[in-house]
């Protein structure tokens, strides 16, 4: 398999087949929390893409250049990763707020949400720590694969979030029964949305 | 020039009982007329006469100092009996001069329009307004901003509404006036091209105009509603889209209805003010026809003149055509300058009763039919939940209320009414289109 093919499969696998939101239940709080509005969904998608890629690269270095050499990866990876991510996100937020108010307004306000988004930690850990998720793909990537992988995850996050948010926008005016309005309907929709992803299960053996 | 025609549109049928074969004949003058003082777009007139005063045929009885307005004239010799609010056929309440017609009427003479070297003043004091629907003061349209140049005058003879035939008959019977009037307008505004646009379902009118047509072009357009709508017509004739928020003169075009053009000719050639017009009475009436009717005649009298309703008549009477006209709540409303026809619909012919809760099935028929290329279903849904901002961003204000969307909707959603509600709301909030 050529490198391009491999990266392509990695992208399809991480974005669609193993869609982080709909098939693996990671990052659901923002998925439901901020999908009410299309603009916000856009902003969040951009922010997640940015942070996820950055966080994965940084954790890759922290893991392979610090934790593993010191032999403490087994029990320190959780605090170490999340510390790096939290600090990074907070730093970016402060930076944007000061230096680029425009970008801050469109993207920065989602950053605090992302600090504690499971998706970022999960994607980073998955890409960096071998065997974290039991999946058909071989993990414990090199830096390049880790980054491609996290981009894929972020794209999958974006696709699901945007389509879900467009759906919710349409359902806003729906005459759905009073007792099911709002949150329950959103979950129902997510359930049916994920039905389509069932069909992608194990595609390309991913 | 892009594409031949405007996009969208529909082919409504139901021209049974249309009056296209009936020659224009005068309607009887009723004993009492109510002449609303607000008959054109813009400022309402103030009465120039007092109760008890006697008035002459053609005498100006209302006027106002405003750029956008048009004076009104008495269509009869008679006496002012009252000045009070009446309901117009379009559902608005307006102050009207009530005149008791004198028993003897001289139908050949009138108080002539004041002489003036400025044609605009003549057009104004003749009370000319657009007879194609919106009753926009003609004077204003003849006076485009000095930085624009009108290259083309389009005489709108499409008459695309089902049933209506007054424009058709005017073109057949008074082709000379239409052509001469069109050229007259071209002279005023300095246009080098006059186009008479006629739908292909009126071959008789095409022949008549062609016979007279010196110095004007005749464009035969496929019949498709709303071919006669100004922006769509300009698109069909010139291939240019009037940009959003702009008026026809921005693209160098002036559109006038054939009735307006003929009335303009009369104002200049015969010095006759606009106090009567041809009104089609069609549908379930005994004698469908085109009646030269004095402004102020009540619709009840006019229908009576046409022989009254037949046994097929339902309970809906339309002022205007069935696509854009207003259903009347009472027959005691006066004929006004903007009223081109009265249609008595047959029972069962009307669009079924609706209440707005039939769901949109997203069939996209309205989407395809809308000549303004809007998304009527979406505006309707948003208007229903009072999301006016969303309506605005869906360009609700661009809607021309042609009714194509509601006509084709298999779910019979009251789309036009919903959109109109949104528009009213947005205009109140001061959002300009």
């Amino acid at each position, binding site marked *: 398999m050529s490198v391009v093919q491999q990266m392509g499969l990695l992208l399809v696998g991480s974005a669609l087949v193993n869609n982080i939101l709909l098939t693996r239940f990671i990052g659901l709080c923002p998925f439901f929390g901020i999908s009410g509005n299309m603009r916000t969904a856009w902003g969040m998608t951009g922010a997640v893409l940015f942070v996820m890629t950055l966080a994965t690269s940084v954790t890759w270095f922290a893991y392979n250049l610090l934790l593993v050499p010191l032999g403490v990866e087994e*029990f320190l990876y959780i605090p170490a990763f999340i510390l790096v991510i939290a600090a990074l996100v907070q730093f970016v937020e402060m930076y944007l707020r000061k230096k680029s108010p425009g970008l801050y307004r469109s993207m920065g306000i989602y950053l605090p949400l992302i600090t504690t988004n499971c998706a970022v930690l999960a994607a980073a850990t998955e890409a960096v720590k071998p065997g974290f998720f*039991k*999946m*058909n793909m071989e993990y414990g990537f090199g830096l390049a694969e880790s980054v491609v992988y996290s981009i894929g995850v972020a794209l999958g996050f974006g696709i699901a979030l945007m389509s879900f948010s467009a759906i919710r926008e349409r359902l806003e005016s729906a005459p759905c029964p009073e007792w099911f309005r709002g949150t329950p309907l959103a979950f129902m929709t997510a359930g049916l949305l994920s039905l389509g992803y069932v069909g992608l299960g*194990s595609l390309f053996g991913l | 020039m892009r594409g031949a025609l405007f996009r969208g549109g529909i082919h409504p049928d139901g021209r049974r009982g249309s009056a296209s074969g009936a020659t224009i004949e005068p309607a009887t003058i009723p004993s009492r007329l109510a002449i609303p003082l607000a008959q054109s777009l813009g400022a309402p007139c103030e009465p120039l006469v007092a109760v008890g005063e006697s008035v002459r045929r053609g005498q100006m009885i209302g006027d106002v100092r405003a750029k956008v307005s048009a004076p009104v004239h008495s269509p009869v010799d008679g006496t002012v009996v009252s000045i009070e609010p009446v309901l117009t056929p379009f559902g608005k309440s307006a102050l009207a001069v009530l005149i008791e017609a004198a028993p003897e009427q001289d139908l050949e003479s009138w108080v002539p329009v004041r002489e003036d070297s400025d044609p605009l003043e003549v057009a104004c004091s003749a009370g000319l307004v657009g007879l194609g629907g919106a009753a926009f003061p003609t004077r204003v349209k003849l006076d485009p901003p000095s930085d624009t140049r009108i290259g083309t005058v389009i005489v709108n003879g499409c008459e695309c509404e089902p049933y209506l035939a007054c424009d058709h008959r005017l073109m057949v019977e008074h082709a000379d006036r239409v052509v001469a009037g069109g050229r007259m307008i071209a002279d005023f505004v300095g246009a080098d091209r006059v186009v008479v646009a006629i739908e292909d379902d009126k071959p008789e009118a095409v022949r008549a105009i062609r016979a007279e047509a010196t110095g004007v072009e005749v464009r035969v357009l496929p019949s498709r509603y709303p071919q006669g709508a100004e922006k769509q017509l300009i698109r069909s004739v010139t291939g240019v889209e009037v940009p959003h928020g702009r008026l026809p003169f921005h693209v160098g075009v002036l559109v006038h209805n054939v009735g307006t053009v003929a009335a303009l000719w009369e104002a200049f050639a015969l010095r006759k003010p606009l106090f009567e017009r041809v009104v089609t009475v069609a549908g379930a009436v005994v004698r469908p026809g085109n009646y030269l009717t004095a402004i102020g005649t009540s619709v009840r009298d006019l229908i009576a003149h046409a022989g009254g309703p037949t046994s097929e008549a339902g309970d809906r009477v339309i002022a205007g055509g069935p696509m854009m006209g207003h259903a009347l709540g009472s027959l005691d409303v006066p004929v006004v300058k903007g009223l081109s026809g009265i249609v008595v619909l047959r029972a069962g012919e009307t669009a079924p009763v609706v209440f707005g809760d039939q769901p949109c099935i997203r069939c996209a028929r309205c989407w395809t039919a809308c000549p303004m290329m809007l998304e009527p279903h979406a505006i309707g849904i948003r208007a229903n939940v009072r999301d006016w901002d969303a309506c605005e961003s869906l360009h609700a204000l661009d809607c021309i209320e042609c009714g194509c969307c509601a006509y084709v909707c298999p779910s019979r959603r009251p789309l036009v009414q919903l959109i109109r509600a949104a528009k009213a709301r947005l205009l109140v909030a001061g959002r300009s289109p």
Partner: protein
Amino acid sequence: MPSTPSSAPRLVLTVVATCAIAATGLSFTHAATADRIAEQERRAVRRALAEVLGSSEGAVEVESVDESVLSRIASADPATPVEAVFRMSDLDGEMLGWGIAVAPRGYGGPVRMIVGLDSAGSVTGVKVVSHRETPGLGDKVVESGDHLAGYAGIGSSDAERAVKEVDAVTGATKSSRSVRDGVLAAARGWRAVLSEEQSR
């Protein structure tokens, strides 16, 4: 939020102190649990190994083969990852057979399983240790004793033919195939490597 920022050293110190304390605490926790975790894992493996050989946990001695042997076995069937190979004997040191841990691809992820082979290279049993197959569909295959038992007795020499006689479960072909792949990989590994290894 107070609008005056705290002093920089204080910020750094707070974070470093927290981190240091946390790290220390965690190393002690790790120290306290590490042995037990390792023991748990060992026991799980032994239990599984004993099971596929049909004997009891207390009655076997388990010994991993060395890396070079493992890699030779793995290369016998490159399509299926081989994770570990154990040599098993009874308490007297009598050779009982082999346990080969393989991880073929299933429907939802790798199906990690242990294939037991006796000293003649015949399959003694198959046990799936962990998997991500669909509940109610694939998991019926990999968890069903009956289906897995179908592989018992297959000899290494004609494994390619014999595994086909085990019927795939309708509706879960892919899961069925993963078990078949695993057994096949074990058999091939035995044929290529262990058969001689054993005689040494």
